[in-house]
């Protein structure tokens, strides 16, 4: 696990995002540039304060630096995969801790809607070098990978599609309270069940959106963040683990091994336990990952995720408010970036109608072959 001494030493100074939806005429660079301007204004920083740059899904860091007139001491790029949002934030924290940079701009741009991204078919490069080996069988798309995992979960534990519906309904309700969300009209369990199958057993409403948008996050040392415009949001803990071996097929344990490893590390580093979390931001590319995440992090026993999400437990006002922005299912598919921004805004108390009362600790979780979790706090320790 990262050195516990790092607890509360790095903080989020600024966050920014573009509008979400169909933003025709924009490419990932434009979207990232606008988001970064917002994040710098939010932090009360200027371009020249940035000495670290990490871009994701934006195709080239050099072109982005050229556009923005940046000459950072530390620069890098991560692949445009959702699991890389948490990993990028963690990398930036490490760069700041070891003195490679004082203030890192993390910038993400996604024009998937404009570009007509389909996440399946010939262009599918999901996972271990893409699903190419299975194309002759018509097997493609990350949605199908999650569908095959959910089917197995259903057989092992009796989990039902109606239980997934509760996740979609909760997040849509949250999106209705979020003026930035793309899909805001309320839905019911019956709507979920009546939505068409994409890859059975998953329905359309188990799938995330495909939309355009940009997100930026500015990280700096806790010490420096205290002098800036907004109150710091401290990174209390972070951790990472993987299951890369045999990842040419979906994992037989729903990534439980790396999820449990990350849970152990992130709570120890944060000096807080899962019961201390005021809200969760769970990477929801498809609704079943919410079950896998809750089980892997021990919020409920293995196999009981379906029952756990019933009864409004994940809704605002429930025991464990989750994806208060609406998440990928209803706010915006920003591959984890906007969920991290929502965590920051919840800690700051900026979430208006969807604000969690006294949000002091908010946890981001991403279940994937590369698992990450980050715990954000109002206080450094």
């Amino acid at each position, binding site marked *: 696990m990262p050195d516990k001494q790092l607890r509360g030493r790095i903080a989020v100074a600024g966050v920014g995002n573009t509008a979400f939806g169909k933003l025709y005429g924009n490419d990932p660079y434009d979207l990232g540039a606008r988001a970064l301007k917002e994040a710098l204004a939010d932090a009360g920083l200027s371009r020249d304060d940035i000495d670290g740059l990490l871009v994701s899904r934006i195709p080239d860091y050099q072109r982005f630096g050229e556009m923005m007139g940046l000459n950072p001491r530390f620069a890098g790029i991560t692949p445009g995969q959702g699991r890389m949002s948490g990993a990028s934030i963690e990398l930036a924290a490490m760069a700041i801790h070891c003195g490679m940079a004082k203030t890192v701009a993390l910038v993400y741009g996604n024009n998937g809607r404009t570009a007509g991204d*389909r996440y*399946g*078919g*010939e262009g*599918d490069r999901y996972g271990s070098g893409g699903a*190419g*080996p*299975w*194309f*002759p*069988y*018509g*097997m*493609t*798309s990350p949605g*199908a990978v999650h*569908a*095959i*995992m959910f*089917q*197995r979960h259903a*057989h092992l534990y009796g989990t039902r599609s109606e239980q997934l519906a509760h996740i979609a309904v909760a997040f849509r309700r949250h999106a209705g309270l979020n003026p930035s969300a793309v899909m805001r009209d309320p839905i019911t369990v019956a709507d979920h069940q009546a939505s*068409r*199958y*994409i*890859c*059975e*057993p*998953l329905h359309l409403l188990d799938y995330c959106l495909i939309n355009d948008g940009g997100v930026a996050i500015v990280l700096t040392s806790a010490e420096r963040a205290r002098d800036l415009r907004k109150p710091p949001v401290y990174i209390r803990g972070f951790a990472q683990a993987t299951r890369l*071996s*045999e990842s*040419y*097929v*979906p994992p*037989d344990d729903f990534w439980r091994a790396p999820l449990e490893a990350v849970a152990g590390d992130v709570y120890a580093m944060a000096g807080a336990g899962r019961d201390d979390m005021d809200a969760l931001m769970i990477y929801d590319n498809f609704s079943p990952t919410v079950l896998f995440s809750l089980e892997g992090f021990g919020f409920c026993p293995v196999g009981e995720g379906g029952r756990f999400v019933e009864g409004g437990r994940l809704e605002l006002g429930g025991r464990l408010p989750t994806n208060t922005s609406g998440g990928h299912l209803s706010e915006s598919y920003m591959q984890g970036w906007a969920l991290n921004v929502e965590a920051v805004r919840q800690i700051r108390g900026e979430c208006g109608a969807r604000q969690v009362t006294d949000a002091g600790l908010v946890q981001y979780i991403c279940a994937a072959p590369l698992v990450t979790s980050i715990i954000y706090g109002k206080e450094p320790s």
Partner: protein
Amino acid sequence: MSAPAKPLPQMTPLERPYWEYTRRHELRLQKCGACGALRFPASAVCPECFSDTAEWARVSGRGRVLSWVVFHRSYFPAFEADVPYNVVMIALDEGPVVISTIVGIANEGIRKGLRVEATFEDVTPEISIPRFRPVEE
């Protein structure tokens, strides 16, 4: 107008022997020359012991269904006419897991634990791909 062609298997040099055997309707996987572990997909070294020696060992072609899905939308134009079609995850009796299609049974009849065996479809004169059909225990 000819129908769009379905995607054909990738043919990296490493994977070519697998497809040369399936063309002969034989299912063979790499077996490590040092520790004997079977591996799939093909790779240059054994993920168990890192040995780079391997032979192509014939496997039974029998296995059990671990999980499955039914595609109701097609991401490949050539699969439009097949919708709804199944894709199945199968644990071979020898251990490795493969993705394929079940034939000879309605999608509704697919069950976890269903016993299956490989059958080969000649998709071009050069290429045959393994599919699976239900068999008795």
